């Protein structure tokens, strides 16, 4: 399946674009997507934290991703 991943803040800078398209096996868990992205962009592995959001909620590591999900990569937030 094809995943579109929205990127923000330092993650957008590291990857160099604001949306990343990734080809992934069906029902891929969050953890595997993160591993794949960290392998491709080692600077992502140096962040204090890196989460995945699915449909505006933080996803767990074992959550399965689907093609129509709204997926985003969430580097350390710093609001307020």
């Amino acid at each position, binding site marked *: 399946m094809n995943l579109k991943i*929205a990127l*923000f*803040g*330092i993650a957008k*800078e590291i990857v160099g674009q604001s949306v990343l398209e990734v080809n992934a096996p069906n029902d891929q868990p969050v953890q595997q997507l993160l591993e794949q992205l960290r392998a491709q962009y080692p600077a992502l592995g*140096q*962040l*204090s934290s890196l989460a995945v*959001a699915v449909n*505006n*909620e*933080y996803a767990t590591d074992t959550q399965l991703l689907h093609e129509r999900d*709204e997926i*985003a990569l*969430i*580097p*350390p*937030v*710093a*609001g*307020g």
Partner: protein
Amino acid sequence: MITIDLTDQPIDVPAALQLVQADGAGAVNTFIGTVRNKSTGRPVVRLEYEAYDSMALHQLRKVATQAQELWPMLENVVVVHRKGTLQIGDVAVIVAVSTPHRAESFAACQYIIDTLKQVVTIWKKEFYEDGDVWVAAHP
């Protein structure tokens, strides 16, 4: 009543305070975060906030709703966060809550700003004379 906003315009503090007031609530606690002229001792010249808007709004509402569950006497909650470029002294965020009695207003307001900082998808870049840093990005 919960009011949430994320805006690239200057935050209207008096309007937020107007919104939070309720005749049944004698106590209003407000936290305002402004841009400091330094960060860990280093002079700051300006800030930029970037937001994942839909998720930030969703998470802000969720935090406010959680506060109302934790403090059922909470009357109104107003949370407004700024995004875009901010100068020294600009208001970055306002959290205002109203309750019948004062202790709960302090507790609920502090809960909201503390939780906001942990979960809301907003990123801050600080600009110095000689560079810039994404705040909290690295250990």
